């Protein structure tokens, strides 16, 4: 069974952390993954940097640009991750934009992911219907779970369609925004979280965008299986004089 599905069965709220591969330094990728696992994180999203990250706010834009400047490429990332399964047990997901994957070749990309032991992919600009028509068979052949997003604007009908294609969890974008731009959740969000929870979908939901601390994590996971932190973690790696990953994770839950 895919590690993501196994993890989703555990009777606890999940904390997933996103970071940009190759940031702050090119060779930090593996260290960060190991530290995150040691600190008790449940799942990791490894960001494959892209020159034009449309759905991301300033924090991830800057980390992506720096990672590219550091020399990160698709091939370099795969090389860094080659032996990752010798030590790391938790689910690993690669999150990246579609163009670099297309240039690598979708089939080759999926095969390499499977060989390494990557469990899933999140590709924000690969639309559900294009995936369903053209790429689903390739992903499934390699045992990869593709994770789709929903937002407060996604129609009920479309949520059911996305639920029907999803094989792991649904990535619930907390509000109409790019990454890293919210400051706390209001009534509107909690209503939306409840509305989706009440739909009793086949796939559990994990909430992302705007989760930055214990308070937002707690609010989000009241109505969902877990939550994803991205920009706040990258800010921690960038700004804090205390760059300890375990201290960051402890501050969340």
């Amino acid at each position, binding site marked *: 069974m895919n590690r993501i599905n196994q993890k989703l069965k555990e009777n606890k709220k999940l904390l997933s952390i996103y970071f940009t591969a190759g940031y702050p330094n090119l060779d930090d990728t593996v260290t960060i993954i190991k530290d995150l696992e040691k600190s008790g994180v449940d799942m990791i999203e490894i960001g494959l940097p892209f020159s034009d990250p449309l*759905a991301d706010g300033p924090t991830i834009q800057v980390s992506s640009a720096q990672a590219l400047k550091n020399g990160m490429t698709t091939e370099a990332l795969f090389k860094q991750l080659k032996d990752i399964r010798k030590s790391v047990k938790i689910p690993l997901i690669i999150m990246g934009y*579609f163009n670099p994957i297309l240039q*690598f070749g979708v089939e080759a990309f999926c095969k390499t992911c499977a060989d390494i032991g990557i469990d899933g992919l999140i590709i924000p600009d690969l639309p559900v219907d294009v995936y369903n028509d053209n790429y689903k068979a390739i992903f499934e052949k390699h045992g990869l779970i593709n994770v789709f997003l929903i937002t407060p604007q996604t129609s009920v009908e479309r949520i059911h369609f996305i639920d029907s294609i999803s094989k792991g969890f649904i990535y619930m974008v907390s509000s109409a925004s790019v990454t890293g731009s919210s400051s706390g959740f209001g009534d509107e969000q909690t209503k939306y979280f409840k509305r989706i929870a009440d739909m009793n979908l086949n796939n559990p939901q994990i909430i992302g965008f705007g989760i930055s601390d214990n308070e937002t994590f707690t609010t989000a996971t009241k109505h969902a299986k877990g939550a994803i932190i991205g920009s706040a973690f990258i800010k921690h790696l960038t700004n804090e004089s205390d760059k300890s990953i375990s201290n960051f994770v402890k501050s969340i839950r």
Partner: protein
Amino acid sequence: MTYNINEKGYYGTFGGAYIPEMLYPNVEELRQNYLKVMAEPDFQKEFNALLKDYVGRPSPLYFAKRLSETYHTKIYLKREDLNHTGAHKINNTIGQILMAKRLGKHRIIAETGAGQHGVATATVCALMGLECIVYMGEIDIARQAPNVARMKMLGATVVPAKSGSRTLKDATNEAIRDWINNPVNTHYIIGSVVGPHPYPDMVARFQAVVSEEIQWQLKEQENTTKPDYVVACVGGGSNAAGAYYHFLEDTDVKLIAVEAAGHGVESGESAATSVLGKEGIIHGSKTLLMQTQDGQITEPYSISAGLDYPGVGPMHAHLYKSDRAEFIAITDDDAMKAGLKLCKLEGIIPAIESSHALAIFEQKTFKPSDIVVVSLSGRGDKDLDTYIKYFDLS
């Protein structure tokens, strides 16, 4: 083979809507409504009236006698430079602002490179009393000060795009991010035949008035609706799409697309996307784009800010791959020379973008009987600084 868009939003294998889910409701709303709205008699009436009385259409199809004598062929200039705000861009912004109003949107965003599309958007927003926010690369803001001032006079807010290379591509990213952040009340007026479906088709339809006029104007002057050639410069491809539109399926009419070679196609400083590009995804469209082997989008270069885009519209990618259009790359130097030549021979100062189209007469020979229509997409006022520096005119 068809050169128009198919029902799935593709030109051949190019096009589609490769957008994050956050944009899906906006783009889907537009996709479901744009043809319906455009077909409404009421919409048509308002659109045509504004094109006539506000933009000043039809734009003349001018027989350039001295230019024709020089190159021994019959050259007609489609005078989009005489439009209000000085370029073809306003045809599209008039159409889209009417679309936005009918979709109930009251906040308008746009991207701009040189500022022509930004000015055209700010203009129609002033006309309709709608809020206008224009994203413009920090570097472009510095080098296009007069257009920044124009937008501000027209009441627009100009927001510097500080990410990436801080030029047109990044301004487009910022506009898209704004749309993600404002999914309900905002319409994004894209400035060319680029972006996710239905934008390329919608913008082409708003620009199609150009070839519609060419047909009847040529009938009056040459007693035929068909030119032998239609020539246009291509940045994103909107003036070309407009000039080609009604000739796309008629292969008697040859199409020539002129791209900016910058310092030369092989120089590393070029914007000749069709030759240098590879199939990929940019700003929500599958098309040809300039990128690294690893799929990172690279920075183009051209002396003309309006041609300085790393992608090209999916219609043009298809015209290139199917050989329906001939693609020619023109260097900075050749474009500048051709621009100056038009000034001297015809008393018309062209936009540097349009000068690229004019430069093909030095490269390609036409028959004396050929009717060659060139899209003179804009006037050169905005480029005076560049002309002055280049030719040391001060």
